[in-house]
């Protein structure tokens, strides 16, 4: 057994209102640069829908992720090493800008400089790549809220699959449609196909926290990772010629803070915490024959942080005690493994993704309510979950390789909680049999309720700070004043988790002086006051 720690995330889809705040703050923090205008490390998709980039889940076409050879060996779906080196001069499986969308800005200057006339001036869209006027025909969320769904949603790879599998129809007429939002970031997989695809060895999984990163100095722009990732969450920066991806906001994570998408999530639907897993068994787990067994195989990799043997093994493998303690309090462990309400996204890609989703009960509950039923009644909900086949099967294709049992189990648990809590909150007699019907106890249902409904900031984000005992000696703490917006000027400042706390004082100082630097340092923003570098309009006295 080799115990490794992994920063994981759970998103509760029932709470997602599709506001895109996560996408916007992520973009401001990471991709507001030339060359990645089109890239959204975090994006929110409306499902059913084509996704971003369009139809990326169609692995028959894009060949992302892993597959088993006839002899049962795990290999990249895009082909073996020699085949991919032979096709290095033109990667035939890479999405083009048309599959994402051509990024644009507007000619805002016209609005101010147009001469007075009888009509209002209009700001024309201009391509952010060529700078020339362009027609907007697609974007990262063009089919938001099922916009244009009758036309586009039938092309959703999962809808297509269901059509052929169960020969049924998903309706996109207004009255019969169902939808939910799916926020997506990099999955920081335990068995990352992007890392395996990189010919230069520039992509790596960090051994401390499992975050998957691209070494910008080692990347040579071969673009194999873009193909390898089945979630299409590695992006090619077309200005620098390097691959870039979601970093799990590692500067924040190292400082013990949640990612910017979690921090700013309006619905508070994101949970961050540690998983301890057995790294020796990852390949075997990813190689199980039946894709529907992959979810269980993935759960089996995750170790119980309360088990003294696991703790001892973790200590032996160099995991610090405060990280083990954090793993014991991890909300993602509880939701994914203890309650089993959170499911992985597309386990059939065999990458062992580490961003988990609690499937949405709302489409089912809404359908019940609209047909005049009591959507909080347990038996109504249990029945509806089984009769409304399409949403369940759609969810199963997303989260469990088509196996409806785990999805039903998760939704049943949520339905039981909903029903049980109504009696609890209204002071009715508690019905323990509702909890027992889904294998829970009234006490555990209450715990789940607390975790899903009332969990506070520190309950949702259990992120232990990185250990910098070694790093601190090398770190240039003395140069903290050279940081972005600091008085030290131009030189590149190294700011680690330790110097973050030193920076806190610097920031407080700067907040009282009107800083007007153009650089906004969102990754290091502690969520309080004005982010470093944001122009401040008045002197603040809050510190």
């Amino acid at each position, binding site marked *: 057994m080799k115990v490794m720690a992994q920063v994981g995330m759970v998103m509760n889809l029932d709470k997602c209102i599709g506001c895109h705040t996560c996408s916007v703050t992520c973009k401001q923090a990471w991709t*507001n640069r*030339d*060359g990645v205008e089109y890239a959204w490390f975090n994006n929110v998709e409306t499902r059913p829908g084509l996704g971003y980039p369009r139809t990326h889940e169609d692995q028959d076409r894009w060949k992302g992720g892993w597959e088993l050879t006839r002899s049962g060996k795990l290999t*990249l779906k895009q082909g073996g*090493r020699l085949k991919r*080196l032979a096709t290095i*001069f*033109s990667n035939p499986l*890479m*999405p*083009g*800008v048309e599959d994402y969308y*051509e990024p644009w*800005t507007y000619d805002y200057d016209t609005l101010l400089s147009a001469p007075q006339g009888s009509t209002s001036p209009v700001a024309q869209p*201009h*391509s*952010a*790549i*060529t700078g020339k006027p362009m027609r907007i025909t697609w974007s990262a969320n063009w089919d938001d809220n099922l916009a244009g769904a009758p036309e586009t949603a039938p092309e959703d790879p999962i809808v297509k699959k269901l059509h052929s599998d169960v020969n049924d129809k998903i309706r996109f007429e207004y009255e019969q449609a169902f939808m939910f939002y799916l926020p997506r970031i990099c999955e920081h997989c335990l068995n990352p196909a992007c*890392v395996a695809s*990189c010919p*230069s*060895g520039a*992509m*790596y*999984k*960090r051994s401390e926290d499992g975050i998957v990163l691209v*070494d*910008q100095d*080692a990347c*040579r*722009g*071969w*673009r194999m990772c873009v193909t390898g990732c089945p979630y299409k969450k590695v992006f*090619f920066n*077309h*200005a*620098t*010629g*390097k691959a870039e991806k979601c970093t799990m906001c*590692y*500067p924040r994570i*190292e400082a013990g803070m949640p990612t910017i998408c979690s921090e700013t999530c309006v619905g508070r639907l994101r949970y961050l915490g540690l998983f301890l897993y057995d790294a020796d068994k990852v390949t075997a787990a990813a190689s199980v024959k039946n894709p529907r067994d992959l979810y269980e195989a993935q759960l089996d990799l995750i170790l119980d942080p309360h088990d003294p043997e696991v703790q001892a093994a973790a200590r032996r493998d160099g995991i610090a005690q405060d990280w083990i303690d954090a793993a014991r309090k991890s909300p993602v462990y509880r939701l994914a493994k203890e309650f089993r309400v959170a499911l992985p996204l597309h386990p059939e890609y065999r990458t062992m993704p580490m961003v988990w989703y609690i499937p949405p009960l709302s489409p089912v509950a809404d359908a019940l309510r609209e047909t005049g039923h009591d959507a909080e009644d347990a038996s109504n909900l249990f029945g509806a979950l089984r009769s409304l086949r399409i949403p369940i099967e759609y969810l199963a294709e997303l989260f469990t390789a088509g196996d409806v049992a785990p999805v039903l189990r998760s939704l049943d648990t949520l339905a039981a909680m909903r029903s049980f809590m109504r009696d609890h909150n209204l002071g009715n007699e508690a019905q323990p049999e509702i909890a027992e019907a889904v294998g829970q106890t009234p006490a555990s249902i209450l715990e789940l309720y607390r975790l899903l409904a009332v969990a506070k900031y520190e309950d949702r984000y259990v992120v232990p700070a*990185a250990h910098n005992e*070694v790093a601190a000696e*090398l*770190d240039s703490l003395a140069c903290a004043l050279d*940081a*972005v917006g600091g008085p030290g000027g131009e*030189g*590149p*400042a*190294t*700011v*680690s*988790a330790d110097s*973050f706390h030193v920076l806190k004082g610097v920031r407080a100082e700067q907040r009282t002086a009107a800083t007007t630097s*153009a*650089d906004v340092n969102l990754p*290091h923003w502690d969520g309080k006051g004005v982010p470093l570098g944001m122009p401040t309009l008045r002197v603040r006295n809050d510190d």
Partner: protein
Amino acid sequence: MSAFTVAQSAPTAVESILWIALPYVALAVMISGLVWRYRYDRFGWSTRSSQMYESRIMRIASPLFHYGIIAVGLGHVLGLLVPQSWTDAIGIDAHLYHSLTMPLSIAAGAATLVGFVALVARRRASALVFSRTTTNDKVMYLFLGAAILLGVFVSWYASGLVGEGHNYREDVSVWLRSVLIFQPQPEYMAQAPLGFQLHVVAGFLVFAAWPFTRLVHALSAPVQYVARPYIVYRSREPRSAGARTARRGWEPTRRD
């Protein structure tokens, strides 16, 4: 000294510059430039692929060009570095040698040239690709294009497809090897036909420009990938922790 002797008069100034100074200066610039670039601009070391913008022409033209130029490179090693006496010794005389290598060199040259022309045409034809083509790229294409065009011409000339035919292994190759062993004999190159002279000059100019252009990506051909474990684990680097001031490629979005 070769047994084969040519006019032994002292080289003129022009000959000295072209056939002694140029190759050494070009190679020195190339090597020191590569070391400098690798030490100070590893971030800029990339293919800077434009496949995202346009892939239909590239899908055909790029492999055509790259496989062509690899074959051309191997052909240069064979034709320039292997002395004629060695192939004579194993019973391959000049005539047999040229009838063996000619079809390969014609084919490789044609693939390279067609691929190159298609790639340059693509750069001009696609608005997206053209908007991201730098001046550096354009100058590099000029040098590389000249070297390729002259190269295809001399390979045809050498084989007798145009002109009377010429055995470059008796002058150009001897000169190049003399340069590489630091005993330059410019008189061999001085008597070579004009086309060969121009091709050699263009070639060394490409070498000199190499470190400062996108061509550097050729030197990072990822052959080590074949023998590497699939998943790479790396420990957190203390130096890479935390935020930094905007580095190259991390500037705010263009607003034009």
